[in-house]
Every structure is written in C-alpha cells, then in structure tokens.
C-alpha cells in the first residue's frame, strides 16, 4: 500500500491528508457485509469455545456511562470486573472498567492491585461538541485521576465536513495530553454511516497516534456491528503492513450475547489475524455481555444451561 516514508508526509497539509484518505481503496457495502455474515456462520465448538469464552471475558471493558452513575455503582462494577464469577475463581478478570472522568478516582481505588485497568471516556463524550481546550482539560483531568486508558470521541462534524487536518491535530493533542495513558479513538461509526468513512476515519485516527480505534460510544444506533468491525480490522491490519505498528480495535455497544462475541473473535482471527487475539489489542465495550459469557462458561463446565440467578447483577 504505502511505505512508512510516504506515510510520514501524509499529514503535512490538509490537501495531502485528504488525498491520502480518499486514495484508500473503497469498501463495497454489500461485499463487506457478505464477508462478515459468512464469518458469522463459523461454528465454534468444544475446546475452541471454552478458549474463546475466556478470551472474550478477558477482553471486556466493563462499562457504565450513565448520568445516574454513582461511586457505589462504580465500586460494584469494579468488584465484578476483578472477580467476574464468584463461584469460579478460574474465571479471568476483565480488561478494564470504563467510566466517566469524575469517577476514575473511585474506580482506581476500587481496582487497586487487581490488574484491571481503568478507562475513562473524555473529550466531551459522547457528542464531542466542545472547545478544544475543554476537551484537553477533560483528558488531563481523567489522566490525573489515574486513568490508564482514555476513550476519546472524534469530532464527527469535522470529519463529515472534510476537515481532516483539524481532526488529526485534535487527536494528536489528545494523545499528548494522555501522556502514558493509552488512547482509544471512538469513531462513532453510526454517525459516519458509510464504510468508506469508517475506513478513512480509522486511518486518520491511526496516523494521528491512536493506540486503539473504537467503533462507538454506545449512545448512537447502530453501535458496533460485525461488518463495521471487519472494516476497522482490515484497517489495523493494513496499517501494520504499512507502518509496522499494531493498533487495537474495540467494538463497543450492542454486543450482548456470548454467541455474538465469539463471532467478533472469529472476525478478528480471520481478518487482522491471531496476533490481535489479546486484550492488549482487542476489546469489547460492554456491560451485559459479561454475564452471558459467564453463563456460557458455566454451561460448558456443568453441561446444563445456566440460570440468571447464578451470575451477579450489579
């Protein structure tokens, strides 16, 4: 596709960046959806299923992003994140807990020593409609409170208006504000609408320094879909081929069933490749998904279908 050298130049001007993004191969919607549907028909059984369920649990960013969130709610969520299945100590812990910035400190305390990371949404989540300074302050606050990961939202307005360089700069500024925290860039694909836009936004975010690209805030429908995730996985795959850096993908919103999670893992496996099958490079942004994964784990272990009263609700 492109060599590292030429990629170094692509954001030197608005026109260069535009030329590059619009020079990416198009995405045919029908073909992409057909491919995703075909991968979704894979059958994951027995040992492969046990492996995949555990992997999926370990990839969950257990999320609460509500106006009614309280320290109590977040503490409960953190307990669940560290020990998802009280009846089974072998159940892996989740990857992270994802909260609003003002609850980062609470989560951080609750998760101390657990190995579960704290992710904070930022940059005027979910709309991204605020002044740059406010967005940066939002990030700095979260990082100062101890966030290990920052989930920023892109300015979809800027993207749709074709103001790619402004968006590039903004992501760069956020990246800088993150310091050592990992930056996930939420594309909000439901507002970008076309897969062509998703591919361009993916590249834009990666070029600007994203550690992860993330589908959705969960506040807009549609949120994560299999084909949109497929397109993003193709982007990280191609980005690595071009630049050598591996960027992660997070599918967030709308993934509630273990069966669906396994389909995402199949798509990861066969698109980006097995190198992405790690919480360091693939995440599910979800809340209710975790319990279904746990119930499926229990079913595999016991041989009978699990009950809702045998997993914890917080």
């Amino acid at each position, binding site marked *: 596709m492109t060599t590292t050298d030429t990629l170094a130049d692509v954001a030197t001007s608005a026109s260069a960046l535009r030329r590059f993004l619009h020079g990416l191969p198009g995405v045919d919607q029908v073909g992409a959806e057909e*491919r995703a549907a075909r991968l979704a028909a894979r059958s994951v059984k027995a040992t492969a299923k046990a*492996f995949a369920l555990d992997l999926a649990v370990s990839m969950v960013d257990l999320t609460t992003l509500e106006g009614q969130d309280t320290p109590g709610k977040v503490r409960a969520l953190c307990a669940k994140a560290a020990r998802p299945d009280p009846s089974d100590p072998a159940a892996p812990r989740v990857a992270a807990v994802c909260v609003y910035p003002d609850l980062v400190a609470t989560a951080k305390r609750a998760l101390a020593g657990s190995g579960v990371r704290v992710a904070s949404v930022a940059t005027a989540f979910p709309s991204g409609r605020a002044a740059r300074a406010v967005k940066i302050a939002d990030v700095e606050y979260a990082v100062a409170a101890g966030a290990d990961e920052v989930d920023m939202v892109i300015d979809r307005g800027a993207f749709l208006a074709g103001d790619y360089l402004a968006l590039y700069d903004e992501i760069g500024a956020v990246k800088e504000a993150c310091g050592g925290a990992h930056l996930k860039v939420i594309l909000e694909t439901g507002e970008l609408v076309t897969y062509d836009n998703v591919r361009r936004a993916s590249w834009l975010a990666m070029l600007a320094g994203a550690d992860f690209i993330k589908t959705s805030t969960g506040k807009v429908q549609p949120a994560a879909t299999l084909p949109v995730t497929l397109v993003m996985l193709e982007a990280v795959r191609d980005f690595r081929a071009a630049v050598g850096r591996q960027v992660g993908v997070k599918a967030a919103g709308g993934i509630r069933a273990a069966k669906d999670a396994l389909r995402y*893992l*199949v798509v990861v496996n066969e698109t980006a490749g*097995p190198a992405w*099958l790690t919480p360091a490079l693939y995440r599910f942004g979800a809340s209710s998904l975790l319990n279904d994964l746990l119930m499926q784990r229990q079913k595999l272990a016991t041989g009978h279908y699990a009950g809702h009263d045998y997993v914890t609700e917080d």
Partner: protein
Amino acid sequence: MAVFEYAPAPESRAVVDIASHYGLFIGGEFVESEDGKPFKSVNPATEEVLAEVTGAGPRDVDRAVRAARAAYEKVWGPMSGADRAKYLYRIARIVQERSRELAVLESLDNGKPIRESRDVDLPLVAAWFFSYAGWADKLGYAGFGPDPRPLGVAAQVIPWNFPLLMLAWKIATALACGNTVVLKPAETTPLTALAFADICRQAELPAGVVNIVTGAGGTGQALVSHGGVDKVAFTGSTEVGRQIAGSLAGTGRRLTLELGGKAANVVFEDAPLDQAVEGIVNGIFFNQGQVCCAGSRLLVQESVYDEVLGRLKRRMATLRVGDPLDKNTDVGAINSPAQLARIRELSEVGEAEGAERWSAPCAMPERGYWFPPTLFTGVTQAHRIAREEIFGPVLSVLTFRTPAEAVDKANNTPYGLSAGVWTEKGSRILWMAQRLRAGVVWANTFNKFDPASPFGGYKESGYGREGGRHGLEAYLAH
C-alpha cells in the same frame, strides 16, 4: 499470541438415510433395470461407498421416455397452469422442509462444503421451484405469444458440480411450462436426484411427470438421442455439448446447452480491494472451482498487482480445506479421481510452461480426493492454463494496463459464460459490462445466482438461458 483453532464442527449425518441400493425412478415408482448395470456412488472425501445405484440401459431409458410421454399426453400437458403451479409450490415447500437432509446428502455425494450446500445450493433449489411455480399460470404474459405450448418430453442431462441445483434449474422450468422430463443425474452424484424422486412422491406429483434415470455417459447418450424426446437440455462440458449438438443435427429437436467457461475476473486499480479479494476467492474456490462460470482467470491491473497478489495469498492462507461436513470448511473434496487427475495434469502443464505455482499452505486429509487452493503467476494468454477450463481450485493470474487491454484479453477465449469486473467507477463498470462477451457479468461481486436472473453463455459456453423469463423460452414452442 493466542491460538484460536476451531474444533471440529461436523454437521450430523443422522439426518440422512441412504439406502444401500437404488433403482430407477420411472412412472412414479422405483423400478429395477431391464438392461443396465449397477454402479457405486462414492463419498469423495472418504472414498467410502455410499450406495449402489442402477445404471440405466437403453431399454430403461426407453421405458422412462414412454412414461414421460404418457404423463405428458394424459395428465401434465392438459393440466391447467394453476394446478401445475400448485405441484411446484408443494415441491418447493418439501425442499425447504427437507433442506438440511438434502444439504448433507449433497455434501456426502459431491464433496462440497456443507456451508455451501446448506447456504447456497439448497436455498436456491427451493427458490427455483418457488419462482417457476409462479410462472406456470402466467406463461401467456412471458412474451412468447398469448398461449405458448409446451414442447413435450424433455431429456435433461446434468453435471456433478451442483447436482440438486442443476436438477432444479432443469425440472422446475420444464414442468412450469407443461413439459414432462426424463432426467439423468451425473454418474458420480446421483443421490440427491434420487432423494428428489421421493420428494415428487411426497408431493403426489402425477406419475411419469418426472423420471430419473441414473447412469454414466452411455445412459446420457441413450437419453439425448432417443427419438421420443422433443427437447434436450444439457449442462456439462463443451466437448460433450458439441457432440450432442452434432448428434441432434437434422432431428429438429430443440436443444439448450450450458457448457464450460474460462471467465476473466478483472480487477482495476480503483477496486474495493478487500471485497475484490473476497470476490476472487469466491470466484475460483467456491465449490472447489468446479464451477462452469468460475473466475479462473484473474486479470489484475499492473499498478496494483503486488498489492492484490499479497492480499490474495494472505486470504488464501486462511481457507480451511477438509471434511465437507464440517461447518467451518471452506474448500471441500474434488468430486472424483478423474477430475483430480485432470486438475493435477493441467497444473503440471502450467508449471512445465513456466508459470509459477503457489498453493495455500494447508493440511489435507489422507483419504479422499483433494487439491489445495492454488494460483499461478506469470501466466500469459499463451499458456494452456489461461485457455483451458481446469474445473478445479486453480487460478491463473494475468495482468493488463488499460481497460481496452482487459477487454481484449477477457474476450480472447472460445468461451463466454461469465466475467467479473471490480472498480469503484460506475461508468467504467458499464463500459466493461457492455464489452465483455459473456452471458453473465458480475460487477463488484461474483458467483451470484437467482431464479429471476437469466444465466447462460455466449460462444462455446453454450446457448439458451436458465432463470427468469428468458429461461422459459427453452421449454416453450414458439
């Protein structure tokens, strides 16, 4: 790095009940042969014998033709279109009801992955009967006159690559138009046709409307040359099609042929590359490449050659070859030792002629007939593998510089069944579609079929169309 291997996920064989022996389906019942010899149908993935099947002799064929004639004259010909439609709808419904059983049986007998028999073949079989059922009482609106008449008895010989689907294409159309049929399935894949005979009985289709005679080439020859048939329809190799066309000369019998191909799949530099790669893979590895309309010649614009080839190889490496009944299998078994030998022979010719061979790294079962997904680079129009139909999972890769060159190369073949075009530029798609000499042009897609969509070839890929309103023409007097 984690290793995510899918455990075996075999579809259950228990849904299928294969008899040890099958007779011929003539006049509404299974009968024993008068002058034929039995033969065995084998699972190409395991070499296990599935059943003993009857090879119909000339007397058997004659019996079948007479049964079809009687049914045509006494029952099916005089029947109203509306009533014929109801029988076809019944068949469509029973196919849907028994769809999983038929899919498993097809995969067992043919070697194709259950994913394809389940998700492609069987849904299309049902759709074909459903769609043509609706034509039976509307023929006067099809553009062949106000009251088009059937031809009579149709002799239909079908291939082994889509056994039940080809049966559906042939029988649904013939019956909708008011003809009766004697159908000969391929020697290596007779079982779903015999299961279809049972479906005819469940539907209480009048006896003799559908007759199934199993056997090898001799049975087919006896059928197509039988003086009592009014119409011959053949799907298979161009060589046999040519012989049939020659042998019917002077008889006045109507003939339609759906024959071989060597389709070009043309990828421009502005193609949606990930979907194009999927289309290339689907074009040549669908059904192990044993598809007359397979995109067996990849024409890539030179400016994206390296990129397309890199992506293609990476994708081919993810293809899962093996047990056709495993739901995760992408590429199944080659249908027969004879076909495997032909694929091997032409691949060796490709190497001998200097093309560079690359096969996807994949483990293959020890028993059964297997060939890895393979591509040849450095192929030119002068190579035999760019000209002859291989009918296997072997792709020849060529390059071009301009649209006109792509068209010239694509059309430079005696075949003309299908072609593919990949570009995001709309006007170029239409420019290409106008110039490609092929009966089906798939633009930004490949290997799509539908009962409402006419299918058939130019030039030596045969004549006549199957599907849609155009498909009716082959079975109506006009």
